[in-house]
C-alpha cells in the first residue's frame, strides 16, 4: 500500500479505470469538488456508511424492552 502522510491527514492510492477518472473529471466541473479524489472520497463515504449501518441490530433483549416500556409508561411517554 502506498501511503502518504501530509498536513491534511493520511492518504493512500486506489486505482480506478482511466475512463472512469475522465468521466468524473467532466462531471465535477463547476461543482464544489476540487478534485476527482475529493469526489470519490465523498461518494465512497456515503456508500460505506450506508452499508455499515445496514448491519445494525438493536442491542437490547426482550426483557430489557419490557422493563423500558414499563418505565416509559410510568413517565407518561407511553399510554
Amino acid at each position: 500500500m502506498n501511503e502518504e502522510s501530509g498536513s491534511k491527514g493520511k492518504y493512500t492510492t486506489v486505482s480506478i479505470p482511466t475512463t472512469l477518472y475522465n468521466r468524473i473529471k467532466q462531471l465535477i466541473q463547476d461543482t464544489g469538488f476540487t478534485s476527482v479524489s475529493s469526489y470519490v472520497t465523498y461518494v465512497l463515504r456515503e456508500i460505506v456508511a450506508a452499508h455499515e449501518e445496514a448491519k445494525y441490530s438493536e442491542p437490547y433483549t426482550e426483557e430489557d424492552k419490557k422493563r423500558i416500556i414499563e418505565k416509559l409508561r410510568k413517565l407518561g411517554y407511553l399510554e
Partner: protein
Amino acid sequence: MVAPPHGGKLINRISKGKRRIRLLSEVEELPKILVPKDIAVDIENIAHGVFSPLEGFMNQEDYLNVLNEMRLSNDIPWTIPIVLDVDEEAIKDLREGDEIAITNEDGKPIAIMKIEEAYKWNKREHAFKVFKTTDIDHPGVAKTMQMKNILLGGKIELINELENPFHHYTLRPVETRILFKEKKWNRIVGFQTRNAPHLGHEYVQKAALTFTDGLFINPLVGWKKPGDYKDQVILEAYDTLIKHYYPKNAVVLAVLRTSMRYAGPREAIFHAILRKNFGCTHFIVGRDHAGVKNYYKPYEAQEIFREFPDLGIIPLFVKEAFYCTKCEGMVSEKICPHPDKYKIRMSGTKIRKMIMKKIKPPPTMMRPEVAEAILKWENPFVTI
C-alpha cells in the same frame, strides 16, 4: 425506521451486577481525579451511548483527527473533541494502563477509567479550530483557556449515576429508540434548543412535523452562558406549548444533559450525531445554530453538512421564520412575497429583553400561554 446509532454500535459503558460491586469495592484503592459537573454529565453521556461510538475520553490520535479533519481516527464523522483535562500534579504518579476513579464535585465516585494516554495540547490551536476564533470574549474560547494542561485518554465505565434534577425528562438512547418504535414512528425529526419557544421555533418544528411521523424536542440542559434561559424555564415553556398547540402523540420532550459549546457549525454536526444516537432520522438546522454573537455566518451551520455525506441523519435546513402582517401568519422568505414593512422578526434577544422588563411579548412573537409560564419566574435567566 429508527436511525442506527453513529458508527453502527450503541455504546453501553455502564457496569452492572457483580462487576459493579467489585469495581465499587476497588475504588478506595484507586487514585482519584475530581471532575466538574459538565465533564461528569459527559461521562454519563458516553456510558449511555449518547456519544456513540465514543467509549471514553479521546486519545491523542482521535483528538488530533477530530481537530484537523472533523473525523475520528477510524474516519467516522465527529466534530467536537471530548476530552478530560487534568493538571500535571494529578497524574505525576500515574502511568499508561493504570486505572483511576473519577469522582464528581461531592467526592462521589462516578466512573473508572483506564488510562490509555496522557498528552499535552495546544489550547489556542484547539480554540481556533473548534470555535474559529481565539477571541477570549467567545464563551467557548474562554472556557477552553481555563482548562488544565494535560489531556487523559481512555475508556470509562460508569459505576454510579449522577443526581439528576430532570429525572422525569431524561431518556437514554436505548429508551428513545424503543419509545419511537412503540409509537410506530419511522421518520423522527430532532430539534435542538437552548431557548424557550417563540412562534419561529413552533413554525419550523411544525413544518418538519408535516412530513415526518414524530418530533423529538430535546432541549439542552447544562452549562450555558449568563442571559440564556434557565433549564427549568425552557421545560415549563415547552410543556405549556405542547399542551396547548401540538397534536397528541406527535411530540416527545426529553432533555439532553451536556454543556453548550457555542461552536456554531461544528456543534451543529455534533448535535445531529447525538440526536441520531437517540434514533432520529432527521435533524432541524436553523439560522445560526449553536452560534453566539457574530462569530459565525447566519447559515454557516447548514453549509458544513455538505462535508459529511456519511452522517446518517438528514439535516432539514430552515430559513429564518417571521410573522407577516399581510399573510397574517408565520412564514419564511421562501414562501412570503411581501416587503419588510409587513414582517415581524422573531428576535430571541428582543423577546428576552421584554421578559427581563416583565413585558409580555405580543402574540405575533410568542404564544400568550408560553409567555405567562415564563413571566411566572422572578428571574428566568442564567446569572453568573
